[in-house]
């Protein structure tokens, strides 16, 4: 039962992260996802200190705001300061993350939030952290409810905004030319990334969430050539990663989040080798006469 709950929580987180990661890597913004996942840390801590609980909506919102602020700062340093994008990302998120680390260490005694948990996640404690209603009914693990709601929000967001997200990712200039606001969709997407990272940090931690944001979509990108298929394959990979990750961790008696991230890296490696083999194979075949 515990195993199942952990796997469900892991899968929900992996699917949410993966779906957004598909957009991020195609927008060449994978590192922005990395930045957001780290930069929301002060948001998490501040919101936690203000409200004193870990499941408040305020906390999600607070961290979401910080996430959007991060993207704004990255854009700002890049456009106004003429700083290279990667330098701008590097400066912004490490600074915000550092503030978060300081806040945690200073207020360590006062808040029920420790660095280990925030950085590495504690998915193994998912079955212990139950949602108990005021009347005393036990509803099951809290993390599962949070990550399931986030996934539903994301599915609605991607479902309704699919066409706009797809176009602004592929050809932003054309999107603006036909009157679709690229900036609006950029910030909506970044808001969604912030929300997802905050909801996922308890399960896999602020560092490993990046693995789930990037590795499954990158794997799917190598294997399929249709965007919808890429989204579906990423979700399937997310589930497989959390199942394999859990049993690998159980077998090694090690960190579950670490095992999940390691498994997703392993899958990427396999997909990469497969991709190279296919390229070699197809290049051996005489190139068919390309029609004009």
């Amino acid at each position, binding site marked *: 039962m515990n195993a199942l709950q952990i796997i469900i929580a892991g899968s929900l987180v992996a699917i949410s992260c993966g779906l957004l990661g598909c957009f991020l890597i195609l927008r060449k913004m994978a590192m922005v996802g990395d930045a957001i996942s780290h930069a929301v840390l002060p948001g998490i801590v501040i919101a936690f200190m203000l409200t004193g609980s870990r499941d408040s909506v305020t906390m999600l919102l607070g961290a979401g705001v910080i996430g959007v602020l991060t993207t704004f700062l990255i854009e700002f340093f890049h456009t106004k300061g003429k700083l290279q994008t990667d330098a701008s990302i590097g400066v912004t998120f490490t600074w915000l993350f550092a503030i978060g680390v300081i806040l945690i260490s200073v207020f360590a005694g006062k808040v029920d939030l420790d660095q280990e948990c925030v950085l590495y996640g504690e998915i193994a404690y998912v079955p212990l952290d139950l949602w108990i209603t005021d009347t005393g009914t036990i509803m099951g693990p809290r993390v599962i409810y949070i990550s399931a709601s986030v996934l539903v929000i994301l599915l609605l967001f991607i479902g309704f905004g699919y*066409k706009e997200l797809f176009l602004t990712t592929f050809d932003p*200039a054309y*999107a603006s030319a036909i009157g679709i606001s690229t900036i609006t969709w950029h910030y909506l997407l970044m808001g969604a990334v912030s929300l997802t990272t905050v909801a996922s940090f308890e399960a896999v931690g602020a560092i490993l969430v990046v693995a789930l944001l990037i590795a499954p979509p990158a794997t799917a990108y190598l294997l399929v050539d249709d*965007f919808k298929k890429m989204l579906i394959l990423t979700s399937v990979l997310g589930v497989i990663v959390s199942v394999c990750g859990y049993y690998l961790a159980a077998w090694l008696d090690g960190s579950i989040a670490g095992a999940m991230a390691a498994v997703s890296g392993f899958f990427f490696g396999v997909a990469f080798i497969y991709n190279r083999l296919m390229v070699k194979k197809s290049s051996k075949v005489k190139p068919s006469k*390309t029609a004009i």
Partner: protein
Amino acid sequence: MIEQAKDPVLEIHDLTVSYDRKPVLWDVDLTLPAGQLIGIVGPNGAGKSTLIKSIMGLTPNSSGYVKLFDKNLKDVRGKISYVPQKESVDWDFPASVLDVVLMGRYGKLGLFKRPRKADKDVAMDALRKVGMEAYINRQISQLSGGQQQRVFLARALAQQADLYFMDEPFAGVDAATEKAIITLLREMSARGNTVVVVHHDLQSVTQYFDWVIMLNMRLIASGPTEKVFNTELLQETYGGKLTLLSDVGELIRRERFPSREQKRKKELKQKK
């Protein structure tokens, strides 16, 4: 030499565009006639793409305004289409040819609505016009440069606009595609659509375009090709930078207006 068009589809008034306070376009003022095939020529860095981008509202104008069909861009977006430079997108993107062409329908669909059968029919029709109907499910990374350009054109056609702006549609395409594209553009202008094209190859200007805009940061000329495309204005546009300039001038004199030249020679002979 700037000729104003009657009942213009496009009016640009005192347009200045700058990047980082450095002007890229300086005080451009012109009008364009309807139903013609219009070429924009000028050296590299002359602001040809910038002109199109600022008409489409993609770069902020420092001063001046643009009127399309005597209205602001916002109000007539549905009637205007844009073909960006082929290199501006990542062709390894996981999308099929049909996916890309369907994007041409997105503007008409509005928020949250998905493309329907009717939109697919329009997209298919556009693909047929550019001769790419056999490739609808092909992933875009597997296309040649010429095919990619045709897909971009099909996407613009699927918009069913009246006025088209195209940024270098002939760049990096093979001769057959160039011919197919120009035939298509001719058909479009014959049907009353206005097509504005950023163009690089001076040799084909007189063959292709009814109207030419010559640009080098400021507007050198805008008018019917036979009136403005001459050595003097080319010299002014390219500032002697073009070593081939005299050759091009020679070409124009010798080959491009043969009928008229010969007629004039005959007339001269008769007078003598």
